């Protein structure tokens, strides 16, 4: 099956160093994850906006073993859920503060989007965030 356009658009944004959030052109509400019809008003008139890339870390974990197939070489890695200031949420990878060290991170920390290389997005098409220093 061909990858749906809402997926390729989102990933192209990541490859270009941008975090895109779907925007409904009829009710003007942001949607994340992107949807095929606006969950607020059911419109299919959907577009993208650039996220400010800043939000709050709702929770996170550091996976140390038991990676899914193909992710073994990434271990350890940290996954978090970010509540963007725009009012939508997404799952992300977190940048360690020092090699393999996420001990500075706390729930409710302010975090920001980090652009990564297009090669990295090709391999792992997800957003990366890091803690905003105190």
């Amino acid at each position, binding site marked *: 099956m061909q990858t749906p356009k809402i997926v390729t658009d989102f990933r192209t944004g990541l490859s270009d160093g941008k975090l895109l959030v779907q925007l409904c052109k009829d009710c003007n509400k942001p949607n994340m*994850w992107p949807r095929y019809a606006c969950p607020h008003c059911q419109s299919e008139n959907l577009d993208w906006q650039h996220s400010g890339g800043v939000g709050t870390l709702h929770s996170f974990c550091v*996976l140390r073993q*038991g990676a899914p197939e193909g992710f073994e070489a990434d271990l350890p890695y940290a*996954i978090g859920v970010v509540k963007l200031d725009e009012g939508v949420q997404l799952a992300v990878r977190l940048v360690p503060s020092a090699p393999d060290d996420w001990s500075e991170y706390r*729930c409710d920390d302010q975090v920001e989007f980090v652009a990564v290389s297009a090669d990295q997005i090709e391999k792992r098409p997800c957003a990366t965030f890091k803690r905003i220093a105190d």
Partner: protein
Amino acid sequence: MSEEWTLNVAPGADNDPVFVGVGEIPTGKFPDRGFIQALTKVAVLALKDAGMVPKDIDTIMLIPCLHSGADQADLVFSRMVEELGIHGTCKSSYMVHSGGSTSDNAVRAAHGLIAAGHAQNILVLQCERWGSADLQEMITMLSKNGIPGEWELPTGIQFNAIGAMITRRYMHASGSTPEEMASVCVTLRNWANLNENAMFYTKALTVEQILASRMVADPLHSYECPPMADGACAFVMTNTANAKKRGISNAVRVAGSGGCVSHYCLSQEADQAVLGWPLAAERAWNQSGWGPEDADIAEIYDSYAAVTAIALEGIGIAAKGEGARWFAAGHGDPGGKLPMNTNGGLLSAGHTGVGGGTALLVEGIRQLLHRAPSKRQVEDCQRAIIGGSGGSYMDAQILLLERTKLGA
């Protein structure tokens, strides 16, 4: 909220659905125990417990397995009808599926079928072979369940990562310590030590052992992660008129239920330390007229300690933020004020996939029928709260069950 959720079946009415029998075989690693063999065994045990034979059953409802698509297809396509020799008479055989909350939804489905007259005697069957399956294959499969492939799979998320995030948020919100989180697992082990069918029947567990075990997904230690197991169980439901005709004097009825599907993938949950439990509970109390203080036991999905602590708070058994400390105080232990997960739960009886919730339900029915082995039978057990959750803890499901005396 001002929802009304009246059950359209009167307690003790002829069409009031009741549980009349359960069956179970040991949970653990049993590579030589076949899938169909196990299903047949628990079917026969449950039917005997109900005082029935296979030909009494008109409807078979299957709880799914996750270890094999081929085995799942056998369930879907009525293999158990033929194995039990009721092909030609059985009216209907099919599967209900919502992951870990399947048993709760299966009861709702069976309850509706019986009350409406579509079914008389229903046999619900479950078998999982997670303990004998290839571990890496199961990890990879579970990184695709309740996880959107296009959006979240690329992060490398899997089930322990989901459990770890919920645990971290819960510890942050409640101020619970690692020791208090570990105490939940110890309570479950104390119950498993009273259950010969539990995977860890003979093994003790302490807070110190848990905290010394290796870190799998911060903040979860390996002894706080559910052990994948083989297991099978079954139960039988009928209507009250039929139960009376069969001379059954005590059975278990559904006083009400409540539920809330709060998300599909965890990233879309508004508050990982709350989940759907408060609304599910409000709906369950509304339908039953019960409150949390009315239960004698609770059997609530426990694939991770935090999941159960959060449920306890949402249901109102423990005060907000006090779920883990409620366990640390021993309130859920054998002899505690509300016996909790009296089979040992998923964490200590064994995680049998979708079947973990079914095993808790079967234990609740068994306790209400007063058929648990004496060492763990809760005295004068009349009312039970059953709780389930599926996928990435996408839903909170509550069944309120009560023992009922059937008149002559």
